[in-house]
Structure formats: C-alpha cells, structure tokens
C-alpha cells in the first residue's frame, strides 16, 4: 500500500480523508496543515480566489515532495491535497497531513511540504478584489 496520497481536485477538500489516510498504529502523532483563504491582502479586501494549475505537472511535483518527505524525515505517511478553481473566503485550498512515530518529524515534514509546495508546484492564484483582480507573486 502506498504511503503517499497526492491529489488536485475541484471538489471540496476532505480533511477527514487526509487524516484517515495517514492514521497508523505505529504513529504517536499526526501533524496537520490546513491552508485557508484570507479575506485581505495588504489591507485590501479580497472577495474570492481563483486557483489554476498545470495539473499533470503539479501532481508530479506534489508527488516528488511527498516522496522526498518520506525519504528525509522519520515519518510514516503523508497526504498532500490541493484545490483548483474558484474559492471563497474561508475555503480550504490545501491540506497536508503527516503521521510519524514522534511529533518532531511530523511537524518538520509538514513544514517542508507546504514550504516546498509554495516554491515548486505549478499552481497560480488570482486574487479578486471588489475593483479588479491580480495574479499573486507575478509582479508584472
């Protein structure tokens, strides 16, 4: 059975499924990161976010992160799920869960996974404001 679960979906992300996937009798803890859509950027009110992806490559890059986490940290299982499409304030664009025999590795792997995802996975978010929209990080 695989120790990694990687997914990009237009459906609502399922925290229980991510938790259940990594739960394991050999583990003393599960670290969970849930990303949420914030209602403002630099004091400007955000109305919604639109996530677009280069899906086949994004899934590959997320799988690389999961595999790298299993190799680099003393963890048992990892799930990385990301949403695509239009999200509203408070919606969840990303969930990462990691189980490990000891908590330190679970926290470290979870942080590694979200930090690396934000650097390498080809997913782009467009912030919508009441008076326009902007691609995040693009600085044109």
């Amino acid at each position, binding site marked *: 059975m695989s120790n990694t679960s990687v997914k990009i979906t237009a459906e609502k992300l399922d925290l229980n499924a991510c938790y259940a996937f990594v739960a394991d009798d050999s583990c003393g803890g599960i670290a969970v990161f849930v990303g949420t859509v914030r209602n403002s950027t630099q004091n400007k009110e955000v109305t919604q976010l639109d996530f677009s992806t280069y899906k086949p490559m994004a899934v590959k890059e997320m799988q690389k992160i999961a595999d790298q986490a299993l190799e680099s940290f003393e963890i048992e299982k990892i799930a990385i799920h*990301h949403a695509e499409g239009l999200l509203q304030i408070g919606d969840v664009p990303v969930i990462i869960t990691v189980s490990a025999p000891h908590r330190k590795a679970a926290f470290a792997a979870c942080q590694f996974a979200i930090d690396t995802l*934000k650097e*390498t996975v*080809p*997913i782009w*978010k467009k912030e919508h404001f009441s008076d326009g929209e902007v691609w995040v990080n693009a600085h*044109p």
Partner: protein
Amino acid sequence: MKMNVLLFGISADLIGASRLEFELEKQSSVADFKELFQEKYSNVTQLNSYAVAVNENYASDDLKLQENDVIAIIPPVSGG
C-alpha cells in the same frame, strides 16, 4: 521543428493565449527557445522571472529540445 507551448497564470494573460505552436531549429536548447520566444512575444519579458518546463519537468537552459516536446512557461507560482 514544431514545438507546442503552454502558457499559465499571468503569462497566458500577457500573451493572450493558453497554448500555441512555435517553430525552432533542430538541436535548439531551452536557452535558444527563450531568446526567440521573448523576441516574438515580448510581453513575456514583463515578468520578473519565469521557469520553463519540458514535458512536465522543470528544464535547465542547456537542455536540448526534441520535435513535439511540450514546453510550458511557468511564471512565479503561488499555490498553497
């Protein structure tokens, strides 16, 4: 040789297309592609930086391209 180019995020907006075909000399590298692409679609230089993927993997400038490779313009990512 004929290349397929995919554009994402702001690069698709800047160029006004999400995919196009691009002609290159045989034996061209990623660096050659970038030079010619920026010449033809100068709007892409409004980006501070962008990466290039070939067949769904990040590619370095010295990678040699093959006919029908799928090239993707990857502007700075912002997932999570």
